[in-house]
């Protein structure tokens, strides 16, 4: 009997120590990234005031605000999402619903999507620079910036949507099959609503990736600081503003940190907004 008891409390001891290890690791590893964020917050907070959000940048960004950048950045994001969401979801449906079951081709599509998701963003910048700016003649504009960004995040979005579609319960498909529901009706009324929350999360991930992107937009969307008055005008995104202030403009650090804080808050708000609206679908 003795050995069994000791074996039992041995498991208890291991369990106890593991709990301590996991708790300490979880809290301590968060210290470093949080110290980075707080460092940025301290530097940027002094520079952050209401006028920072309402005025346009002055003296190449050192003073003034970033209001015009909100407009151009959101336009870039809208162009990107307007392309990525419809095409992403329909392609994910094509792959998941095995519309034309040709396994070899589908396998190759999935592999190339994964490889493309790993391609460094600077190559998408150059691709956009040559294809959208030169060949399609869109020049340095919000449109070519948004489209190149779309090419970059599309593979990631398709893979995320596909995983979500796979997790949709099989019982819905069985019921629809038995009731002889049309494939379109099944997709629109049953399949998509059941994975709406997952797709919402995918949209949030893609938006986060698009907002954090610098290399792509440098070559395509350009650097203009003023309000864009059409999609063919060049516009600067928040992350490029941070990059430019930090890398090219002497004395740009406080403004860069303030812009970084605004970008964080934007990420948090967008995250909550999309999650909330998809849950209520």
């Amino acid at each position: 009997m003795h050995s069994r008891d000791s074996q039992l409390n041995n498991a208890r001891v291991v369990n106890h120590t593991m709990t301590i290890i996991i708790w300490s690791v979880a809290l301590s590893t968060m210290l470093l990234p949080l110290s980075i964020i707080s460092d940025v917050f301290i530097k940027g907070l002094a520079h952050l005031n209401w006028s920072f959000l309402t005025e346009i940048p002055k003296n190449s960004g050192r003073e003034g605000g970033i209001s015009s950048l909100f407009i151009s950045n959101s336009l870039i994001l809208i162009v990107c999402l307007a392309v990525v969401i419809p095409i992403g979801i329909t392609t994910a449906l094509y792959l998941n619903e095995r519309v034309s079951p040709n396994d070899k081709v589908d396998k190759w599509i999935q592999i190339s999507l994964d490889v493309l998701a790993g391609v460094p963003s600077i190559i998408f910048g150059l691709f956009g620079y040559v294809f959208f700016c030169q060949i399609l003649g869109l020049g340095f504009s919000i449109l070519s910036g948004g489209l190149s960004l779309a090419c970059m995040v599309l593979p990631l979005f398709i893979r995320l949507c596909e995983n979500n579609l796979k997790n949709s319960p099989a019982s819905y498909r069985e019921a629809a099959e038995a009731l002889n529901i049309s494939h379109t009706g099944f997709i629109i009324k049953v399949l998509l609503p059941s994975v709406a929350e997952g797709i919402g999360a995918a949209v949030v991930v893609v938006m986060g990736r698009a907002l954090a992107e610098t290399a792509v937009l440098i070559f395509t969307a350009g650097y203009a600081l003023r309000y864009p008055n059409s999609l063919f005008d060049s516009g600067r995104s928040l992350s490029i503003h941070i990059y430019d202030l930090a890398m090219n403009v002497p004395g740009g650090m406080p403004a860069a940190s303030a812009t970084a804080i605004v970008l964080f808050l934007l990420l948090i708000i967008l995250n909550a907004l999309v999650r909330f609206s998809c849950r209520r679908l």
Partner: protein
Amino acid sequence: MYKFKNIIIIIIGLTFCVSCNNNSKTKIELTGSSTVAPLIMEIGRRFERLNPHILINVQTGGSSRGINDIKNNLSNIGMISRELKDNEAEFTEHTIAWDGITVILHKENNVKQLSHQDVLNIFTGKIKNWQKVGGVNKKIVVINKAEGRSTLELFLKHFGMKNSDVEADIIVGDNQQGLNMVAGSPLSIGYVSIGAAIFEAENGMSVKLIDIDGLESKLSNVRNGTFPILRPLNLVTRGQTSKEVMEFINFAQSAAVSDVINQHYFVSTNANK
């Protein structure tokens, strides 16, 4: 599902109305060196206020991109921080300002000044310890610039070195990254545009400019041309240019913008005349 649909309709409507009012303003596209871009952006803003019907779009990306974009006529004016090379004869250059290249050290580095030969030996690795040039007994950290940058070319030409001779510990891209790197390592030595260096030194960044052969690194020496390493900041065009483009170039060379040029710690051309 219903709410989702009308959100999308609103967004599409918004983008459509924004994209269609492609107004009649003429646009001038400038691309090129990241040193010149901030200056031209400010000049462009002032020019737009005086000529509301013209839009000035400025993009950075480096001197060679400035040249390439004009070749593929993606832009009207190229910005380069160097003279035109001999194989770029098809372009015409218009100098708007002068900039010097100065050697910078960390603020606490007690070395006061260096000779031309000292700098050469440090960068080619012959001198490895600060003690040899009157500093503390520690290893020197050499910061060099990436291939293709005009600052690198001028620096090498002035000191008669080839890039392969330089034994660098860190290689940086833009000026600002060089400044940050020197400010971050007390034993480092690097070289950047004098304008950016003076601005940062005065705004509390722990960097200091060093005099070479007793010649002080300050703007007055750049202005009177005695500063050893000088480079023109050029606007470059190809073939005949439109009226608006010439208007902008003349404006950029005029005295009306010399305050902006001084604000960026460059030396405006008409000050020399």
